[in-house]
């Protein structure tokens, strides 16, 4: 019979995860301002423009405004504050 031995767990210490609520959803997008956030990945501006055009064609009651962070891969609190202050909803692309 083989000997059983104890060994260390090689993993680090993960952070405690605190649950967070999603924001309440809108009844409709009609008449609302939707922020289109261009995350600055290569060609994401072109994609977001196509998404904006789709909304303009199919949901003309939806207003849109494009936002861009100061740099890619970095949080931009000023941009987030502007989106929170000005818009009713946001579409972010293309994120990962």
């Amino acid at each position: 019979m083989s000997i059983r031995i104890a060994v260390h767990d090689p993993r680090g210490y993960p952070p405690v995860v605190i649950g967070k609520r999603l924001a309440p959803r809108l009844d409709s997008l009609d008449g609302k301002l939707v922020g289109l956030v261009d995350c600055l990945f290569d060609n994401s501006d072109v994609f977001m423009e196509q998404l904006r055009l789709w909304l303009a064609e199919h949901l003309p009651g939806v207003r849109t405004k494009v936002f861009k962070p100061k740099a890619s891969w970095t949080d931009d609190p000023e941009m987030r504050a502007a989106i929170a202050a000005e818009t009713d909803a946001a579409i972010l692309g293309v994120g990962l």
Partner: protein
Amino acid sequence: MELELAGIPTMPVHTQPFARLAQSVARANGMPRARQAYVPQPLVGRSPSELRAYVDGADPISKRPFMQEVIEGLTKPLSPEDLEGLSFERSTPRLLEPDTRENLHELFRQNRWTDMLPIVLPTEERVAAMLKGTSIPADRIVGKMRPTAFREFWQFDVEKIAVNAVMAGAKPEYFPVILAMMASGITARSSSTTSFATISVVNGPIRDQIGMNAGIGALGPYNHANSTIGRAFSLACQNLQGGSTPNETFMGTLGNFLGYTACFAENEERSPWAPFHVDEGFKASDSTVSVFFGGWYTQSGYGPRDSWKEKFIRCLTATEFYQQPLIVMDPIVARGFVDRGFTKQSLIHWCADNAKLPARDYWDDQWSQTLTLPHAVAGIEPYASRLKAKPDELVSIFMPEDIKIVVTGGETQGAFKMFGGRYAGRGPGTFNRENPTVLIDAWR
């Protein structure tokens, strides 16, 4: 997710291969039911009409119309589960359940705690012996690390690093070097699609004290300290940052051989120039390790021959220039440049002055578009001037401070290499300038 917390319903859009990663990040942020939409990969290189087809088409994950996913994500009422979020603690025990050696080896492989090469099992005795390699208490928190900027940080202490050092086959006398590397906070296991690795350079007296190789085959598998220190760093990064699992915490499309191990010593004794760590402000008597992030490209050559300028320009301009070059040269090459009247610094300046591309080529680059363009548009130099340049106008691709030179090798050939080696520290961004050289003596 910050926008959701601010009360703004949000729909992030990702490309299909990132679905598992996006869901994993949402869960780790306590919002496992965050709504997401997906489009096919790739986005890069696709025309407006092709991207319009993505918008008009189906979400490749849900198979429903993409825009229906987006609109419903913003308007479909929340369920009770959506409102709860998810709080949880993930514990990592100090010791695993006892088992046979064979089963434990299999457990480590199955859990992706290895680099898929055989490891040394981290028994209590072996870890205790490794801890004797430092005077720092085992429970001292050394730092925190994550595979990429949008994931959560995991913490680690001295003992956890010792566990991984044992697994890599390192000796206790190497342990201060490994601790210093981990204290840099730079991960050798980035999750980037670009398959980054790290290259670490050791300077100072500890090189000889632990028997590192800076001679023949310094970059190769010919020295126990070089090999196992680099491997320990790689294993520690993947295990202490919360993993490096393909399709979840690792997205590098090709992977990188340097991910197994990449650590060497500078041949200070045979170099005609000051050691690298002295260039960076340390004393020659200090022992340091410098962690270069990248390892994505390699250019190679010999010399310096009469045509060395043309060769260097070809190499420098052939780099993926978002990754600054770490030039590693044999002492023969370094002395050759001295014979031609160069100091290390004047050679670096020559490289920066002569590494130029037409602006058209500089900007027709995925990383220039993603990382550099926002700074250029904001008027930040030197990027703004590069953006103003006419398409055929030559623009510099490096600043002198971007380029680093290290001398190593056994003088059997006048060989050099240029590696992608960003010497800037943790995190993304063009302007990040943390100091990635760590004093090993502080970890003895």
